Protein backbone atom coordinates (compact mmCIF):
# COMPACT_ATOMS: atom_id res chain seq x y z
CA UNK A 1 0.00 0.00 0.00
CA UNK A 2 1.28 3.45 -0.92
CA UNK A 3 2.08 5.65 2.06
CA UNK A 4 -0.61 8.16 3.01
CA UNK A 5 -0.09 11.82 2.12
CA UNK A 6 1.36 13.67 5.10
CA UNK A 7 0.23 16.78 6.95
CA UNK A 8 2.89 18.61 9.00
CA UNK A 9 1.48 19.88 12.31
CA UNK A 10 2.68 22.78 14.45
CA UNK A 11 1.49 23.17 18.03
CA UNK A 12 0.59 26.38 19.85
CA UNK A 13 2.77 28.38 22.28
CA UNK A 14 3.41 26.59 25.57
CA UNK A 15 2.40 23.20 24.16
CA UNK A 16 4.28 20.38 22.40
CA UNK A 17 4.03 17.88 19.56
CA UNK A 18 2.76 15.20 21.97
CA UNK A 19 0.09 17.49 23.47
CA UNK A 20 -1.13 18.70 20.07
CA UNK A 21 -1.22 15.11 18.78
CA UNK A 22 -3.39 14.14 21.75
CA UNK A 23 -5.71 17.09 21.14
CA UNK A 24 -6.00 16.02 17.48
CA UNK A 25 -6.71 12.36 18.19
CA UNK A 26 -10.33 12.40 17.01
CA UNK A 27 -9.44 14.49 13.98
CA UNK A 28 -6.69 12.02 13.11
CA UNK A 29 -8.98 9.02 13.49
CA UNK A 30 -11.65 10.65 11.29
CA UNK A 31 -9.03 11.15 8.56
CA UNK A 32 -6.91 8.06 9.25
CA UNK A 33 -7.55 6.54 5.83
CA UNK A 34 -6.66 9.80 4.04
CA UNK A 35 -3.68 11.39 5.82
CA UNK A 36 -0.80 10.76 8.15
CA UNK A 37 -0.44 13.63 10.63
CA UNK A 38 3.16 14.34 11.68
CA UNK A 39 3.69 16.57 14.73
CA UNK A 40 6.75 18.75 15.26
CA UNK A 41 8.20 20.22 18.46
CA UNK A 42 9.12 23.91 18.76
CA UNK A 43 12.75 24.64 19.70
CA UNK A 44 12.44 26.72 22.89
CA UNK A 45 10.99 26.05 26.33
CA UNK A 46 8.41 28.22 28.11
CA UNK A 47 5.52 27.92 30.58
CA UNK A 48 2.29 26.07 29.81
CA UNK A 49 0.03 27.76 27.27
CA UNK A 50 -3.77 28.13 27.37
CA UNK A 51 -5.71 24.88 27.71
CA UNK A 52 -2.61 22.82 28.49
CA UNK A 53 -3.04 22.52 32.28
CA UNK A 54 -4.29 20.80 34.34
CA UNK A 55 -4.56 17.77 32.05
CA UNK A 56 -1.17 17.86 30.33
CA UNK A 57 1.05 17.86 33.42
CA UNK A 58 4.70 18.81 33.18
CA UNK A 59 5.68 15.41 34.61
CA UNK A 60 3.99 13.56 31.76
CA UNK A 61 4.06 16.08 28.92
CA UNK A 62 6.74 18.67 29.70
CA UNK A 63 8.68 20.60 28.70
CA UNK A 64 6.24 23.04 27.09
CA UNK A 65 7.57 24.78 24.02
CA UNK A 66 7.46 27.92 21.89
CA UNK A 67 8.46 28.66 18.28
CA UNK A 68 9.61 32.20 19.07
CA UNK A 69 12.40 33.49 21.29
CA UNK A 70 12.98 37.01 22.64
CA UNK A 71 15.95 39.32 22.18
CA UNK A 72 17.83 41.09 24.99
CA UNK A 73 15.22 43.83 25.23
CA UNK A 74 12.44 41.29 25.58
CA UNK A 75 11.04 41.68 22.07
CA UNK A 76 10.00 38.71 20.02
CA UNK A 77 12.49 37.77 17.28
CA UNK A 78 10.49 37.62 13.99
CA UNK A 79 12.47 34.74 12.49
CA UNK A 80 12.66 32.67 15.68
CA UNK A 81 16.45 32.67 15.58
CA UNK A 82 18.42 32.65 18.82
CA UNK A 83 21.83 34.14 18.05
CA UNK A 84 24.64 32.22 19.72
CA UNK A 85 22.14 30.20 21.68
CA UNK A 86 20.14 27.07 21.13
CA UNK A 87 20.00 25.80 17.57
CA UNK A 88 23.33 27.49 16.61
CA UNK A 89 21.55 30.49 15.14
CA UNK A 90 19.36 28.50 12.75
CA UNK A 91 16.22 30.37 11.63
CA UNK A 92 12.85 28.99 12.73
CA UNK A 93 11.58 28.32 9.20
CA UNK A 94 14.93 26.89 8.07
CA UNK A 95 14.85 24.57 11.09
CA UNK A 96 11.38 23.28 10.21
CA UNK A 97 12.37 22.75 6.56
CA UNK A 98 15.34 20.73 7.79
CA UNK A 99 13.13 18.66 10.12
CA UNK A 100 10.76 17.95 7.22
CA UNK A 101 13.69 16.73 5.10
CA UNK A 102 14.95 14.64 7.99
CA UNK A 103 11.60 12.85 8.27
CA UNK A 104 12.76 11.08 5.14
CA UNK A 105 10.76 8.96 2.75
CA UNK A 106 7.05 8.52 3.07
CA UNK A 107 3.87 10.01 1.74
CA UNK A 108 3.87 13.34 -0.07
CA UNK A 109 3.74 16.37 2.24
CA UNK A 110 0.45 17.74 0.95
CA UNK A 111 -0.48 20.14 3.71
CA UNK A 112 0.38 21.76 6.98
CA UNK A 113 -1.77 22.52 10.01
CA UNK A 114 -1.12 24.87 12.90
CA UNK A 115 -2.87 25.78 16.10
CA UNK A 116 -2.60 29.32 17.55
CA UNK A 117 1.11 30.30 17.50
CA UNK A 118 1.73 27.29 15.23
CA UNK A 119 -0.24 29.09 12.48
CA UNK A 120 2.59 31.63 12.36
CA UNK A 121 5.09 28.88 11.54
CA UNK A 122 2.66 27.59 8.90
CA UNK A 123 2.27 31.09 7.42
CA UNK A 124 6.05 31.47 7.35
CA UNK A 125 6.45 28.16 5.53
CA UNK A 126 3.81 29.04 2.94
CA UNK A 127 5.22 32.52 2.36
CA UNK A 128 8.71 31.05 2.01
CA UNK A 129 7.44 28.52 -0.53
CA UNK A 130 5.60 31.23 -2.44
CA UNK A 131 8.67 33.52 -2.50
CA UNK A 132 10.89 30.70 -3.64
CA UNK A 133 8.57 30.02 -6.55
CA UNK A 134 8.24 33.72 -7.44
CA UNK A 135 12.01 34.11 -7.43
CA UNK A 136 12.33 31.14 -9.77
CA UNK A 137 14.30 28.83 -7.49
CA UNK A 138 13.98 25.21 -8.59
CA UNK A 139 12.54 22.73 -6.11
CA UNK A 140 15.48 21.12 -4.35
CA UNK A 141 15.99 17.49 -3.40
CA UNK A 142 13.65 16.57 -0.56
CA UNK A 143 12.08 20.06 -0.63
CA UNK A 144 8.44 20.28 0.40
CA UNK A 145 5.69 21.81 -1.76
CA UNK A 146 2.58 22.17 0.37
CA UNK A 147 -0.72 22.29 -1.49
CA UNK A 148 -2.69 23.79 1.39
CA UNK A 149 -2.55 25.04 4.96
CA UNK A 150 -5.03 24.68 7.83
CA UNK A 151 -4.95 27.47 10.44
CA UNK A 152 -6.80 26.74 13.68
CA UNK A 153 -7.49 29.63 16.06
CA UNK A 154 -4.55 31.57 14.65
CA UNK A 155 -3.52 35.20 15.01
CA UNK A 156 -0.58 37.51 14.25
CA UNK A 157 2.10 37.60 11.57
CA UNK A 158 3.81 34.71 9.80
CA UNK A 159 7.29 33.84 11.02
CA UNK A 160 9.96 35.41 8.80
CA UNK A 161 12.38 33.17 6.88
CA UNK A 162 15.81 33.92 5.41
CA UNK A 163 14.13 34.32 2.05
CA UNK A 164 11.16 36.45 3.07
CA UNK A 165 13.19 38.47 5.58
CA UNK A 166 16.09 39.18 3.25
CA UNK A 167 13.70 40.15 0.53
CA UNK A 168 12.35 42.92 2.71
CA UNK A 169 15.88 43.92 3.68
CA UNK A 170 16.72 43.94 -0.02
CA UNK A 171 14.02 46.50 -0.67
CA UNK A 172 15.06 48.71 2.22
CA UNK A 173 18.67 48.59 1.12
CA UNK A 174 17.84 49.67 -2.40
CA UNK A 175 17.75 53.25 -1.18
CA UNK A 176 20.80 52.96 0.99
CA UNK A 177 24.14 54.33 -0.35
CA UNK A 178 26.00 51.46 1.33
CA UNK A 179 23.92 48.90 -0.51
CA UNK A 180 26.01 45.88 -1.46
CA UNK A 181 24.54 45.17 -4.86
CA UNK A 182 26.64 42.16 -5.87
CA UNK A 183 26.09 40.34 -2.61
CA UNK A 184 22.39 40.97 -2.29
CA UNK A 185 21.78 40.31 -5.95
CA UNK A 186 22.59 36.66 -5.43
CA UNK A 187 19.16 36.23 -3.91
Amino acid sequence: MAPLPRIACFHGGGSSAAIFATQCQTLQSQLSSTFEFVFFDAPYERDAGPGVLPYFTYEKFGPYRTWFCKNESGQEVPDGRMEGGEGNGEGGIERVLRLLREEGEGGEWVGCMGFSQGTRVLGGLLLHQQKRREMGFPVGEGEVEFRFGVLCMGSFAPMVSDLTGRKSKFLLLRWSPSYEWGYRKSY
Partner: protein
Amino acid sequence: MSLSGTPDLISIPTLHLHGTKDVNYANGKKQLAAYYDPKTSRLIEINYHHAMPWFKADLMKLVDGIESIYRDTQEIL
Protein backbone atom coordinates in the same frame (compact mmCIF):
# COMPACT_ATOMS: atom_id res chain seq x y z
CA MET B 1 7.24 42.87 0.91
CA SER B 2 5.88 44.05 -2.38
CA LEU B 3 7.13 47.26 -3.98
CA SER B 4 4.32 49.18 -2.33
CA GLY B 5 5.77 48.20 1.03
CA THR B 6 2.81 46.10 2.10
CA PRO B 7 3.33 42.43 2.93
CA ASP B 8 2.64 39.91 0.19
CA LEU B 9 -0.55 37.95 0.67
CA ILE B 10 -0.25 34.20 0.91
CA SER B 11 -2.03 32.73 -2.11
CA ILE B 12 -1.39 29.04 -1.45
CA PRO B 13 -4.88 27.76 -0.51
CA THR B 14 -5.68 27.95 3.20
CA LEU B 15 -8.50 26.90 5.49
CA HIS B 16 -9.04 29.06 8.58
CA LEU B 17 -10.88 27.81 11.66
CA HIS B 18 -12.10 30.58 13.96
CA GLY B 19 -13.91 30.22 17.28
CA THR B 20 -16.48 32.86 18.13
CA LYS B 21 -15.68 32.44 21.86
CA ASP B 22 -11.93 32.61 21.31
CA VAL B 23 -10.30 35.55 23.09
CA ASN B 24 -8.23 35.87 19.92
CA TYR B 25 -11.26 35.89 17.63
CA ALA B 26 -10.71 39.50 16.48
CA ASN B 27 -6.98 38.91 16.06
CA GLY B 28 -7.78 35.88 13.94
CA LYS B 29 -9.81 38.07 11.60
CA LYS B 30 -6.89 40.48 11.41
CA GLN B 31 -4.49 37.63 10.60
CA LEU B 32 -6.74 36.43 7.79
CA ALA B 33 -7.19 39.91 6.31
CA ALA B 34 -3.56 41.01 6.62
CA TYR B 35 -1.68 37.97 5.34
CA TYR B 36 -4.01 35.75 3.31
CA ASP B 37 -5.41 36.29 -0.16
CA PRO B 38 -9.23 36.29 0.07
CA LYS B 39 -9.35 34.51 -3.31
CA THR B 40 -7.53 31.46 -1.95
CA SER B 41 -8.59 31.36 1.70
CA ARG B 42 -11.73 29.84 3.16
CA LEU B 43 -13.20 30.21 6.61
CA ILE B 44 -15.04 27.97 9.06
CA GLU B 45 -16.47 29.43 12.26
CA ILE B 46 -17.44 27.36 15.27
CA ASN B 47 -19.01 28.44 18.53
CA TYR B 48 -16.00 27.51 20.62
CA HIS B 49 -13.08 28.90 22.62
CA HIS B 50 -9.30 28.85 22.02
CA ALA B 51 -8.89 25.11 21.49
CA MET B 52 -9.14 22.41 18.84
CA PRO B 53 -12.79 21.46 18.21
CA TRP B 54 -14.22 19.10 20.82
CA PHE B 55 -17.87 18.68 19.88
CA LYS B 56 -18.53 16.22 17.08
CA ALA B 57 -20.47 18.67 14.90
CA ASP B 58 -17.64 21.22 15.10
CA LEU B 59 -15.01 18.58 14.47
CA MET B 60 -16.85 17.30 11.40
CA LYS B 61 -16.87 20.82 9.94
CA LEU B 62 -13.08 20.83 10.19
CA VAL B 63 -12.83 17.27 8.78
CA ASP B 64 -15.03 18.24 5.82
CA GLY B 65 -13.04 21.43 5.33
CA ILE B 66 -9.72 19.57 5.22
CA GLU B 67 -11.11 16.93 2.84
CA SER B 68 -12.48 19.65 0.53
CA ILE B 69 -9.32 21.74 0.42
CA TYR B 70 -7.28 18.61 -0.25
CA ARG B 71 -9.65 17.59 -3.06
CA ASP B 72 -9.62 21.09 -4.55
CA THR B 73 -5.82 21.32 -4.55
CA GLN B 74 -5.04 17.91 -6.07
CA GLU B 75 -4.26 19.41 -9.46
CA ILE B 76 -2.74 22.70 -8.40
CA LEU B 77 1.04 22.92 -8.34
